[in-house]
């Protein structure tokens, strides 16, 4: 099984690096710099780019997996703003770009698929994700790291099949 780096892209980027599916993952959270103007995307994208390059250099993964940005599909309860969407799409694009530049196999995992893999419920809340990851023995510090674990487990399942 390949060395896998899974990330949950948002203003707090949770990551989980697995040297192997059974190894204890290295977990952490990278906070993107805050910006006074929401539309000032550049500094955040640059910070994410630099951070991800460093992480890839440090851990040398063979696979990079990320949680796909959540896009509205006619749901009336959707509350993300245009700026949030643009940020999430931008982060996903950078992740894909770096995977390509570093010759890493790249996977995008749907939010619901990841949630279902970890909790059995595709609509699980943040708290449920943390509880499920902790119950499996992963020492996650927040829901972002729990999401990264879920992404990694989904990809491992897929590679095994």
């Amino acid at each position, binding site marked *: 099984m390949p060395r896998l780096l899974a990330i949950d892209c948002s203003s707090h980027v949770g990551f989980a690096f697995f040297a192997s599916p059974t190894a204890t993952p290295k*977990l952490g*959270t990278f906070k993107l710099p805050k910006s006074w103007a929401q539309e000032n995307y550049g500094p955040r994208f640059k910070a994410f780019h630099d951070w991800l390059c460093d992480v890839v250099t440090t851990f040398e993964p063979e696979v990079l997996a990320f949680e796909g940005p959540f896009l509205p599909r006619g749901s009336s309860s959707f509350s993300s703003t245009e700026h949030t969407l643009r940020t999430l799409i931008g982060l996903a694009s950078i992740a894909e770009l770096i995977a390509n530049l570093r010759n890493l196999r790249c996977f995008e995992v749907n939010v619901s698929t990841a949630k279902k893999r970890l909790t059995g419920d595709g609509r699980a809340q943040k708290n449920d994700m943390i*509880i499920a990851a*902790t*119950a499996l023995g992963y*020492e*996650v*510090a*927040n829901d972002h790291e729990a999401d990264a674990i879920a992404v990694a487990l989904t990809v491992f399942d897929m590679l095994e099949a």
Partner: protein
Amino acid sequence: MAERAKAKPKAAKGKVKGKAIAVLPKKSRGAKGKPGPGHNSGMHAVSDEVIGRHLDTLKAKKKALDKVVNDYKDDLDQARGVYRSARKLAKKEGVNLKAFDIMSELESEDMGHVQVNYADVARYQKITDSPLLQLEMFQGMLAPEPAVDVALQGQNAGKGGEPADNNPYPANTDDHVIWRENHQLGVKQATEALTRH
């Protein structure tokens, strides 16, 4: 008993133990109400070179400090988050976290302090006729006897004029010897005090 430190007596202005010391001439101190050279009230110009030098140092030191703080903060946030996650799982599986918090706090305290506090709680409940008293939680709790400093006890007895025969500790014990030796010290101190006056 430890000796009490006394403040060093102030030397007279311009003198140290009878010797004259250099004092700034009145001119250099500036006119009355106005700052002289070296005063930091901002009433005289400081060169850009001096300020620039300090700013460089300050920036470098602040950067080093921020790095340490950030490294420490990341570790702290991670450890806190992992602890919070463990609490969430424990709560979901039926652990009473409030009881755990009380237990943790008590475990971090000295046993004697816990006993004293709980004995006091029982007493205050009794005084205020608290309905919680019916729980009989703290009824059997007795405050421990305060620790006795044998040396201080002997010294005070000697100072107070008690005879050496009043040694409360059985002969051939360490406490007996300590009490006797400090009793003698106390008697000596009392005698010295009397001769001074």
